[in-house]
């Protein structure tokens, strides 16, 4: 692409990422450093929303259980840290650890494995059945963690949060941790952009557009959808791991089905099937969720209609305004 003649969409991406890059500096300059943890949380939810966009926007799979993978990832990190701090054996061995190479990898892999299992069953259905079955599975996971008394059950789990990443980045250092998460978000955006434009990515989009045609062409669609679902689950679990590191405290509420709904709202609000849109959606959603209650306690009454209008008139959400006209509806690049 010609560096001097960038289109609106590229400009938008550059401006958005630049704004996120300077955010902590602005916060420090204006004595708002206490908010940096909040900003990190926004980026972490943005990663989770991007992962949901892979299945929702590109795969056309409306999953109402995505927060389960996010929550499982977070719990893996929390539990491993908790065991390491208390020196309590796990499965009869000293498996607890603070090492993020282990905890974050385990979070992604186990969430991915769970997504694969849930996908194996739920991807045999479609439409409303798929929505309901993913919801049911997610609630099962939710109640499983609620019933885990050893790890706090309903009350959640607190664990020491002084994680050092790769021996250099201390998660206690607000700014350094922010830039780590920001760097991860950028890497995720780049990798998922490549993914959706690859052969695999086009197959997944073909399944969204017309699965019947895909089968008639000879694609065993199930395996591609399952791979995509698994990958999205792993990425959500990874975001959950970051969330756990950010909060040092987690509870089952982060995987309640309403949190899955929030993730869908972020994706739809920002723009489905655009990858960058969900980032915008996460920023907008968490900002509105934080500020609207200051004006009225009935903020949902305002937020609901805003969302409805967006879905009706801008199917590609906020980011859709910055797309060329023919890209605003359907399709996906």
């Amino acid at each position, binding site marked *: 692409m010609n560096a001097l003649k960038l289109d609106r969409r590229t400009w938008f991406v550059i401006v958005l990422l630049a704004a996120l890059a300077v955010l902590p500096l602005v916060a420090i300059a204006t004595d708002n450093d206490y908010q940096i943890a909040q900003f990190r949380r926004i980026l972490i939810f943005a990663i989770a929303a991007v992962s949901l966009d892979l299945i929702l926007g590109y795969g056309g799979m409306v999953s109402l259980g995505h927060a389960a993978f996010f929550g499982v990832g977070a719990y893996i990190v929390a539990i491993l840290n908790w065991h390491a701090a208390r020196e309590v054996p796990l499965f009869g061995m000293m498996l607890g650890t603070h090492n993020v190479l282990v905890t974050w990898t385990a979070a992604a892999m186990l969430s991915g494995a769970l997504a694969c299992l849930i996908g194996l069953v739920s991807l045999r259905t479609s439409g409303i059945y798929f929505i309901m079955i993913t919801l049911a599975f997610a609630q099962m996971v939710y109640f499983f963690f609620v019933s885990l008394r050893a790890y706090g059950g309903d009350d959640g789990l607190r664990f020491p949060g002084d994680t050092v990443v790769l021996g250099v980045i201390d998660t206690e250092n607000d700014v350094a941790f922010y830039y780590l998460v920001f760097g991860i978000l950028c890497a995720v955006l780049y990798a998922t952009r490549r993914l959706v434009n690859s052969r695999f990515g086009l197959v997944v989009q073909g399944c969204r557009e017309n699965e019947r045609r895909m089968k008639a*062409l*000879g694609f065993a669609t199930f395996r591609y959808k399952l791979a995509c679902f698994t990958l999205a689950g792993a990425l959500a679990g990874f975001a959950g791991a970051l969330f756990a590191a950010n909060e040092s405290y987690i509870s089952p509420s982060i995987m309640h089905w309403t949190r899955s709904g929030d993730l869908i709202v972020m994706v739809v609000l920002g723009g489905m099937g655009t990858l960058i849109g969900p980032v915008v959606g996460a920023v907008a959603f968490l900002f509105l969720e934080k500020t609207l209650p200051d004006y009225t306690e009935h903020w949902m009454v305002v937020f609901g209609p805003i969302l409805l209008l967006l879905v009706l008139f801008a199917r590609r959400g906020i980011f859709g305004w910055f797309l060329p006209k*023919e890209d605003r509806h359907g399709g996906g690049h």
Partner: protein
Amino acid sequence: MAAAIEQATLLAVDGLVKRFGGLLATDNVSLGIREGEIHAIIGPNGAGKTTLIAQLAGEILPNAGTIRFAGTDVTGLTVDARARLGIARSYQITQIFKGFTALDNVAMAVQAQDGHNFRTWAPARADENLRKPAAAILERVGLGARADVRAVNLAHGEQRQLEIAMALATRPRLLLLDEPMAGMGKDESERMTALLAKLKGEETILLIEHDMDVVFALADRISVLVYGRVIATGRPDEIRANADVRAAYLGDGDA
């Protein structure tokens, strides 16, 4: 016609039965499609033509009977497994990727037989192994100039051509075409007829079509389906002369 008899049978249907509740949509159909022929299936509305094709492609499973394709029993295979063996189809109601460009539609079909579908990094739209054959096939069906138009913005007739291009792109051994001219205007129909004439001799085609002029001009053989039953199979002149067919379907002096 010794040569015709010796022609290998590519698809052999034997004793196929399909019931929808009390309705017998396919009534003990036996049929052979020979390598290289255009075999037309005609019959009134509701005769069971689409149901038959759906069973050949694997979307509907028969209650009884067998389907052999190139020597393999495919009766129990899934749609995609049959497609990989070389059975491609177009639908009575067009099935394409509406949000993709015409070229992307065909490139997806090329990719179906090229494989490597788990590549996750290299940009597929820059892949000459997909784009070049796709562009050539678009050219072949007469959509070369429309490559970058989104399928949803193509005219109805162009969408039908595109669907045939996609079927061709999988390099099939057998093409199942369900009323390729359905809903087309006069010009569009003529263009489609010309395209089918071009494919004659190059591809093996099972063609369902209501337009008798087209059928009798293109088909090597014709089977007549009435109430799910094949009442006659033969060359166009044989079908035209067949008394049963005239009584049941063509009507007096119609053909």
